[in-house]
């Protein structure tokens, strides 16, 4: 099934579970994802949305919006999470496992590592003070497509 969804939400932590639920429901009606795959999708979305809340908008209330877009074609799910916050100065460094700019807040620095491992493609686009866009693609297991 082909289809799309777009969700615009304020950058509040209670929306983390909401955003990942919406994407999971969208994925489920568009493709034959396994429980394990759906859980990986939810986790990856949670990472990107959480990063927008705590890093892009510095955990301030009343800051900005997050846009979550989903696109489905037979066998693929594409999710893009966009914020309009501070941006990432050094993307290569940010993607390194265990790298975090907020170690004092008990961040594990594993958000990008999780996104990379749980999805099949990860593209990060960012510019300082403009915001960040995270595009992730997951392919349905070829054996389950038939």
């Amino acid at each position, binding site marked *: 099934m082909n289809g799309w969804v777009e969700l615009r939400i304020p950058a509040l932590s209670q929306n983390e579970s909401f955003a990942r639920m919406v994407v999971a429901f969208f994925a489920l009606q568009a493709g034959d994802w396994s429980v394990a795959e759906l*859980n990986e999708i939810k986790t990856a979305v*949670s990472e990107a949305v959480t990063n927008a809340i705590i890093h892009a908008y510095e955990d301030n209330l009343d800051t900005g919006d997050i846009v979550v877009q989903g696109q489905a074609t037979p066998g693929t799910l594409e999710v893009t999470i966009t914020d309009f916050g501070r941006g990432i100065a050094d993307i290569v460094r940010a993607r390194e496992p265990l790298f975090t700019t907020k170690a004092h807040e008990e961040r*594990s620095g594993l958000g990008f590592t999780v996104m990379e491992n749980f999805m099949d493609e990860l593209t990060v686009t960012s510019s300082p003070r403009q915001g960040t866009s995270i595009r992730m693609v997951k392919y349905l297991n070829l054996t389950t497509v038939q």
Partner: protein
Amino acid sequence: MGFSTRYRGNILVVSLSGELDHHTADELRQTVEKELDKDIARHILLDLSQLVFMDSSGVGVLLGRYRRILAQGGKMAAYSLHPHLEHLYEVAALSKVIPAFASENLAVNELKKDEGLRR
């Protein structure tokens, strides 16, 4: 998310349920810290059988508690890892610091293993 705490000797057992993310992390952090402040616990044991979701923010909170209990000379373990958490456990290499066991008793045995030697 929900959680409950109990003691099994000097082990603080924390049962987690629901979803552990950045939004729910604070509550867990505060509950465990309050229990550790009572100075009863030497080790922490997590019951993960009902925890259906966790992301890297959850990993951060767990590692924060691990560091405190390690500094006190204790250990941390988990049991009945929910299948949804298996991939995260692997990617975050969590079993190196918070090994997950099949049952509560197996985990308790591991936590108590070399206790006699240290006293």
